[in-house]
């Protein structure tokens, strides 16, 4: 594109004036010395070449034409006249003119090439410096002002705008016009680079792994060709920041997990002594025999509530431990149904408005298991059933024999678990969307419950064929070998 550059014009005028002056001086000297045409034309050619080296093409061409005039006037017969008598002189003048013009053209071309390569070099230098500054930027700093500020001033950029679709952030630097935001937004929305040469606004899409993840726009960019590399630099930085954020989130979450367990553990330990103090004081008060019935009842409430708190604390501490450590069951022959009944008892006492019943559908419910761990597991299932079911609705625990397995099914109604959540409910720290709103919890209970089931060689699952409005958890434990034999013998005898 041709543009009128006043600076360039002034320079051309200066060179032309100097050339004309030089030509006049040279003509005066050559005329005084009575140089012939050949010698004078050589001197003029030298002048044109010199001028081409330092000046521009316009001045060189102008001086070439003027030199032809001078040659004709002062050195071609008849001298001091523009008339040319011999045709050979016309040829000589014409060849001088052509030579002068060609030299001017060639030199200008070389100079222009040198200038372009200089510009390219400078541009590369600037891009390199920008890339270095971007690399030096801490990736944990939010993608935004700090990052965009680096672009300001480079290649004449007056303002920059970044839209990061991953973080959903729009950032500005410099003093942008409304148009910059509009063009950047357009580039992202259409997935195409946008250029507005009139307003010198250039917006580039940011693509990571083929998909558009944002857009970056520059206002006041001198050279539209640099918009591409600048956009690429922006994209690289954005991707780097995103990966860094992802990595630090993962590290932070791992750190939080262990921190959380440690705190839970420490807190639970700290609770034990004050709880013992309260329990002892309340128990002694109750048994002192000096209290009236009303005060005695209050002392009993303090004691039973402190006992409940201590039960919950113990569960918390055990769950926190089992979450991190390997579950080591102390296996012995135990009656699953009676352990379940023992576990249900305090729940039934506390929630009188709800019926919690245990149904045993097999003769023997003996299993090899750790009673304490099974109590913890059943307590967790009961907790879940009470927390997430319709208030007041019944909870049923059914123990039955299924081949070589003893199964405990916990039925509760209301608030069934969403199909999309089912695969996740046993994940560590997973809390259902409904659960987070409805009931407090650590998100560890079911994870630990399943861990306990697995450590016993059993399984804990959410049954797929739930009743329409409810939830069924099923714990299955292997029946011990002698039990299996006796059962088979019974069958054989019956047959």
């Amino acid at each position: 594109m041709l543009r009128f550059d006043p600076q360039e014009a002034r320079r051309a005028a200066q060179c032309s004036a100097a050339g004309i002056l030089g030509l006049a001086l040279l003509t005066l000297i050559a005329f005084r010395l009575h140089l012939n045409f050949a010698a004078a034309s050589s001197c003029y050619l030298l002048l044109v070449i010199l001028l081409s080296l330092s000046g521009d093409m316009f001045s060189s061409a102008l001086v070439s034409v003027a030199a032809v005039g001078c040659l004709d006037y002062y050195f071609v017969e008849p001298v001091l006249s523009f008339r040319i008598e011999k045709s050979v002189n016309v040829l000589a003048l014409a060849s001088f003119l052509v030579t002068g013009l060609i030299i001017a053209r060639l030199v200008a071309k070389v100079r222009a090439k040198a200038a372009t390569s200089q510009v390219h070099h400078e541009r590369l230098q600037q891009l390199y410096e920008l890339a270095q500054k971007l690399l030096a930027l801490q990736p944990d700093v939010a993608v935004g002002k700090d990052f965009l500020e680096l672009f300001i001033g480079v290649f004449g950029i007056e303002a920059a705008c970044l839209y990061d679709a991953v973080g959903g952030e729009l950032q500005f630097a410099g003093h942008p016009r409304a148009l910059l935001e509009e063009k950047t937004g357009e580039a992202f929305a259409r997935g195409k680079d946008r250029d507005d040469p009139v307003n010198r606004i250039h917006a580039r899409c940011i693509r990571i792994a083929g998909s558009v993840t944002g857009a970056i726009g520059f206002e006041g960019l001198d050279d539209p060709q640099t918009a591409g590399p600048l956009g690429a630099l922006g994209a690289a930085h954005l991707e780097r920041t995103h990966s860094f954020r992802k990595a630090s989130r993962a590290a932070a979450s791992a750190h939080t997990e262990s921190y959380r367990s440690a705190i839970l553990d420490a807190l639970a330990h700290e609770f034990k002594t004050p709880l013992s103090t309260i329990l002892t004081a309340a128990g002694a008060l109750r048994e002192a025999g000096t209290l009236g019935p009303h005060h005695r009842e209050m002392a009993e409430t303090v004691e039973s509530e402190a006992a409940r708190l201590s039960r919950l604390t113990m569960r918390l501490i055990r769950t926190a431990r089992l979450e991190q450590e390997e579950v080591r069951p102390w296996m012995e022959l135990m009656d699953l149904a009676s352990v379940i009944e023992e576990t249900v008892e305090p729940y039934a006492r506390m929630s009188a408005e709800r019926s919690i019943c245990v149904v045993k559908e097999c003769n023997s419910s003996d299993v090899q298991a750790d009673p304490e761990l099974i109590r913890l597991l059943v307590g967790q299932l009961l907790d879940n059933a009470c927390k997430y079911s319709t208030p007041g609705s019944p909870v049923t625990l059914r123990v039955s024999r299924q081949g070589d397995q003893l199964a405990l099914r916990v039925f509760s109604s209301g608030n069934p678990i969403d199909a999309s959540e089912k695969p996740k409910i046993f994940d560590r720290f997973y809390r259902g969307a409904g659960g987070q709103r409805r009931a407090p919890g650590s998100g560890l209970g079911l994870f630990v419950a399943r861990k306990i089931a697995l450590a016993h060689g059993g399984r804990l699952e959410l049954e797929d064929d739930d009743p329409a409005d409810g939830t069924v958890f099923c714990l299955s434990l292997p029946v011990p070998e002698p039990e299996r034999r006796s059962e088979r013998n019974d069958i054989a005898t019956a047959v």
Partner: protein
Amino acid sequence: MNVMISPQPSKTFSVLVVDDEPSLRKVIRASLAASGFAVEEAGTGKDAVAAIRQRPFDIVLLDVNMPGISGVEACRQIRALAPRAGIVMVTVRDAEEDKVRALEAGADDYVTKPFRFRELVARLGAVLRRTHTVRDAEADVLQAGDLKLELERHLLSKRGEPVRLSPKEFDLLAYLMKNQGAPMTHVKLLRAVWGPEYGGELEYLRSYVRMLRKKIEDDPARPQYILTEAWVGYRFRNPSDPDQPVNQEEQ
């Protein structure tokens, strides 16, 4: 409540309460004093050992986790100074190694924090009864509930019916019954019944307990006599004993 631990109803038992937590110490002191004990306090294991040097105590309630010398070390020193004093350790759940170490260092029993007052009193009472009842070392017949063990004749009967036991089963049951009410660590049982070179053969002991339960319990899956102290050992329970161990989960 009046906790008069027979067989000497007139005697007031002296208790040394050792805990680094002043409020718990204060409450235990007041509660036990109200129940008829003469109570002294110590804040550290070192102070406790010093107090024992000064005067004898019938029973020491000793916290296992204390700054300075540990509860287990204090227990060992107290046991050396006062072989006849009862020692009850205060431990926390999930610290089974502490319980085992305390029992091996000479403790008679333990209570697990957080405990209820009546559980504490029952445990102290049981230990006092064991340490203050002069058992007839020559006693030939041990009885507990429906069980009757005749040492001399190597006979066990349940509700009058003879029960056949192997010699090792008999020795194990006899040892447990002689120490009824007290927790016995696995190592202690193995060494007492099988010999001093034993100690790590857990599975061995467990299978003997399994067989014994089959023979003496009405329902082996719900044992009434041989109770499990998970990761620690076993405790023989006499159904006619007034101080029954309290199952903490059922508090």
